[in-house]
Every structure is written in structure tokens, then in C-alpha cells.
């Protein structure tokens, strides 16, 4: 029942998929954590990710909570190291090379080519999370799906219209609204 080696393998692998940000790895995170290893249900994963939006720092620190759920404090520590060390080393090494590669013509091609793929992967992650919320609220009832869609749209529009609001407060506000929309 020792899950530590599996945790290390999964999160080290996910680490290398986070091109453009943590969101890029979300579809694969769902596959591995929910479907392959059954560590969490899809709804639990969405809950962890969403709560993570209210925590400070890099937005994938919620992997710490997954590790805790699976194997306690040690699981949490192991997951964080497995998730952050591979890309940290890669960035450390490539970062030193990158400056020297300034005249290398492919450097610019790589940078410009990966930009749209990174955006695509981010959006794919968004869609995966959106589907998860859809499934979770559909279990409550069709009306709950509409409430969730309205809430998501309200936050989306607010953030595109103004940058003066701390997004963490909007997510927190969503929790308060959820209390009435999805409660008994």
C-alpha cells in the first residue's frame, strides 16, 4: 500500500508538462490522480485546485494537499519535491545556457513556437476544470449547473473588465455564494 514511489513518478512526470504554467498539466493531472491511481475523485481534485486559487504563491501548491491526502506529511513533502525539483534543475541548467545561445537562430523559433502551445494547454486545462465543475454540480441538479455557469461568467467578466480586484477575493466570494446556491 506504499504510494510514495507512485507519487514521485506521477508528479515528476507532471512537472515536465507544465509549459506555460501549472494549468497545462491539469488534464494529465486529472487522468493520473483520478482515473489511473484513484487517489481523489474528480470533484475532490476540483475542490483542491479551487482552494489553491485562494492560497498565496505559485498556483499549483495545491499538489501539497494531494500528497497529504494520499500519504500524510511525508506524502506532501515528497510530492512538492517531485513536482518542483525536475523543472527547477532544468531551468537552472538551461537558464545558464540560454544567454550563450543568443545567436542561435532556433532559440527564437522555440520561444515563438511554444507560446501558442502554452496558451492552448492552459485553455485545455481550463476546459478540463470546467467539465469537472459541470459534472459536480449536475449531481446536485440542473439548476445548480446554471448557478455555477452564472458564477463563473460573473468572475470571468469582472476580471476582464477590471484589474483592480484581487482574484482571491472573487474566489472567496464564490464560496459564500455557493453556500446559498448549492447548500440544502
Amino acid at each position: 500500500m506504499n504510494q510514495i514511489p507512485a507519487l514521485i513518478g506521477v508528479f515528476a512526470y507532471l512537472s515536465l508538462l507544465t509549459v506555460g504554467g501549472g494549468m497545462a498539466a491539469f488534464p494529465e493531472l486529472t487522468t493520473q490522480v483520478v482515473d489511473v491511481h484513484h487517489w481523489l475523485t474528480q470533484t475532490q481534485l476540483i475542490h483542491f485546485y479551487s482552494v489553491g486559487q485562494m492560497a498565496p504563491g505559485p498556483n499549483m501548491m495545491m499538489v501539497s494537499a494531494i500528497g497529504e491526502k494520499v500519504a500524510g506529511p511525508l506524502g506532501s513533502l515528497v510530492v512538492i519535491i517531485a513536482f518542483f525539483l525536475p523543472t527547477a534543475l532544468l531551468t537552472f541548467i538551461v537558464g545558464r545556457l540560454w544567454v550563450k545561445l543568443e545567436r542561435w537562430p532556433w532559440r527564437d523559433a522555440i520561444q515563438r513556437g511554444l507560446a501558442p502551445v502554452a496558451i492552448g494547454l492552459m485553455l485545455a486545462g481550463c476546459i478540463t476544470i470546467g467539465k469537472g465543475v459541470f459534472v459536480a454540480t449536475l449531481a446536485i441538479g440542473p439548476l445548480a449547473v446554471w448557478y455555477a455557469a452564472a458564477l463563473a461568467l460573473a468572475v470571468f467578466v469582472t476580471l476582464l473588465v477590471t484589474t483592480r480586484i484581487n482574484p482571491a477575493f472573487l474566489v472567496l466570494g464564490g464560496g459564500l455564494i455557493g453556500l446559498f446556491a448549492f447548500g440544502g
Partner: protein
Amino acid sequence: MSETPTNDGDHAAAKVTLAQIFLTFLLIGATSFGGGVAAYLRTSLVARRQWIDDPTFVSFLAISQTLPGLNATNMAILVGDHLRGGLGAAAAIIGMCLPGALIMFAAGVLYGLHGERPIVTAMLHGVGAAAVGLVFAVSIQLGRKSLTHLGDLVFVVLTLIGVNLLSLSVLYVLLGVGALAIWWHRPRRQPTASSPS
């Protein structure tokens, strides 16, 4: 020669200590919310402490966005390495991750204890719905900034089709569409301006 330390030290970069690096990134890690870490980093490192200049910051940001890894942690590595080598990089990334990791660890414990309560589930559904709005908004904003050519939209759509419609592994989509996009932007021989026609 007086040794009075200057607060806004203009030659600060030369004598930044590991403790200073750790504490600075700890502060950023504890106070940056909602994915906009780049703005917090710039305010703290370029404007306030003047540890790095703006062109260096921009080039570090470009590397961070191209390589795998979160922008926040990649930036921590690059800036830490720039200031104090490998140990500086370690101090920066640990400081950056520590607050969020501890908070999410506590959240995980609390979830295990109370996550099944209907009132908690209801709140978390609301938090989840709001988070969907947030992540879409952040992606759109980032896309507007980083996609300069209309043709790039093709690669965005191909990526979406691969991951969401065909349910391919992110790894294969990244390698496949990534290679295609890099090839599309491949270096082409420029007609030399100096040559007379």
C-alpha cells in the same frame, strides 16, 4: 569609508545575502495571489530592491515562460542563480514555495476532517465555479499578450483538439504541436539587406 548600509542600495546586487534572498522570496510567496506573480516579482526585485534591471527581468521572464515549470518558481531559480549561484537559486525557490505549501497542507488536513460536510461541499462548489471564471480570464489575458500572429491561433486550436476532443496525453500534444509550431517559426534565411539587387 563608512560602512552604512543603504536601504535602496544601488550596488546591492553585489552583496545580497542568502538570508535576504530567502526572506524576499518568502514575502513574495506569502503575498502574491491569483497567478499574477510576475507583477509582484517586478515590483519587489526591479523597482524596490534593484537586484536586477528591467531588461534582465524581461529576458528571465521569457525563459520562464518557454521552459516547463511555473513562471513563479522558474523566476525564483533564475534570479536566485543570478544573485548568488546555486545556493541563491535554492534559497529563492524554497522561500517562494514554503508559505503556499504549508497553507495547502493545512487545507488538505482540514478537508480530510470536514470535507464531507454538506455546508463545506456547497462552499467548495461555489469556489470551484468562481475558479473556472478566474482561470479562463487569466488564460485570455495571457493569450492576448503573448499571441502576436493570427496564425498562432491555429496552434492554440490544434492543442485544444488534441487534449480535449481526442483526449490525447498532454505529453504527446506538447511534443507534436510544439514541434510543428517551432518548425513553423523556424529560422529562415533573410534576404541580406546589404546585397545590391
